């Protein structure tokens, strides 16, 4: 690795960490993860596309929670970092609670994305909402 200093980088230290060491990503074929539902938003033509895969379980009170999560992203550094951050934030939360996660939460978690990158974090939570919605459709 280089001897880059964090403040020299275009993004915050936390964004850099999640970009260089993303959490919960799904490498290769999606059959590698036993998921209950997925949500996809964005378009490669616009420069980014995200897919969230959720595995749903139950907590002690019997509420549905996100037991595990994986994601795939075609996108820029902040798109990758946002999806990685979101996967950490949403894990273990009830579905209702996870639906409340907003772009601002991801932005705060990452220590603020540059303004023109804010839309990348919006895409992430849209993908998660779609995954939850798809899960609920399926289990009806």
């Amino acid at each position, binding site marked *: 690795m*280089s001897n*880059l200093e964090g403040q020299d980088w275009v993004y915050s230290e936390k964004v850099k960490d999640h970009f260089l060491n*993303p959490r919960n990503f799904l*490498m290769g074929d999606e059959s590698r993860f036993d998921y209950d539902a997925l949500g*996809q938003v964005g378009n*490669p033509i616009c420069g*980014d*596309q995200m897919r969230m895969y959720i595995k749903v379980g139950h907590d002690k009170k019997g509420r549905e929670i996100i037991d595990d999560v994986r994601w795939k992203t075609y996108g820029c550094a902040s798109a990758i970092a946002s999806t990685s951050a979101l996967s950490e934030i949403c894990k273990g939360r009830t579905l209702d609670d996870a639906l409340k996660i907003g772009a601002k939460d991801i932005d705060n978690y990452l220590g603020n994305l540059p303004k023109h*990158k804010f839309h990348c974090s919006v895409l992430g939570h849209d993908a998660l909402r779609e995954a939850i919605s798809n899960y609920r459709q399926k289990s009806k």
Partner: protein
Amino acid sequence: MRFTDIARNEWCFKMVYLDNAATVPLLPSVRKAMHETEEKLFANASALHTPGHLAMNKIEECRAVLAELIGAEPNEIIFTSGATESNNTVIRTFEGHQIECSPLEHHSIFEATRVYKGNKLPKLYSYMLYNNETGEKLEFPILDNESFLHSDLTQALGKVEINVNRLGLDYATFSAHKIGGPIGVGALYVRSGVPFKPLLIGGNQEHKRRGGTYNTVGIAGFLAALEYVRDNKTWEIYDESIRKLRDTLANHILAKIPGSSLNTDVRRGRSLPNILNVSFKAAEGESIQLYLDSEGIIVSTGSACAAGDIKPSHVLMAKTGDAEIAHSSIRFSFGLDNTMADVERVMEVLPGVIDRLQKISTIKRS
């Protein structure tokens, strides 16, 4: 000693700098010339006193060297603050007239054309000789006797031999920082007798063609860079050794990285020898750029995200019509102090970066 050694020692010892089409690091002789000028030729070059006159001599020396290098007369050269000003000046000269530019032009021509074009004749054509993103060579349009031709030669200077007469140009744009000179200095070639309207008014400098106190230090740096180009015939070095580096990288990438495709036509005569633009299927450009950056490898991308823009590179869109290709593109641009070790270093890192991005991508690479 390599030109980037000082930055390399400060920041990242293993830096491999491959963004020379954006800016070439200052040549040591340029740095020296600028320091000397700062100390000795500080006076206002427009002044009649001796220190002013000495400063003006330096400026005229630069004018003569550039004129000779491009086959022009010294009085046909106007110094500017850079390529954007040179381009804007030409386009604005034809305010209200028909203006046609190639779809691959720099924004400083594209946007100015949109603002200033009209219906009057004569018509101005603006076609760059080589594109900055792909390195591609453009064909000039065939002109009638009434029309005028401008070419942005920012990328061409120093990379190929230039003769404005043989090229049939009425106007041409040059920039110092693409040949190892300082940022903030450029020049405009204006053939004797063609229409001209100054962009900056309010001073007698440049025979009332460009107002503003002379940037003596910058122009002295430009002079040193031009002398380097002339004395070393840098276009021959680019054509031989730099082309070899570029082509080796292209071959390695195509052979070793699945989903890679060239946006540069590397055949001789089709592109500048130092630029290689490549797209990597399913991997996004800004991510590639920043993963490489974290390993000290410096490149650029045509992805929208990197530029903080909504749309990807208009050049790659015009060339390929495919936004995904544009978003997934990386430009490697070589300079005179790159070596084969740089190519090897890129190939140590790049395949892993692309493989990882392709594996986490929503798009399949094949």
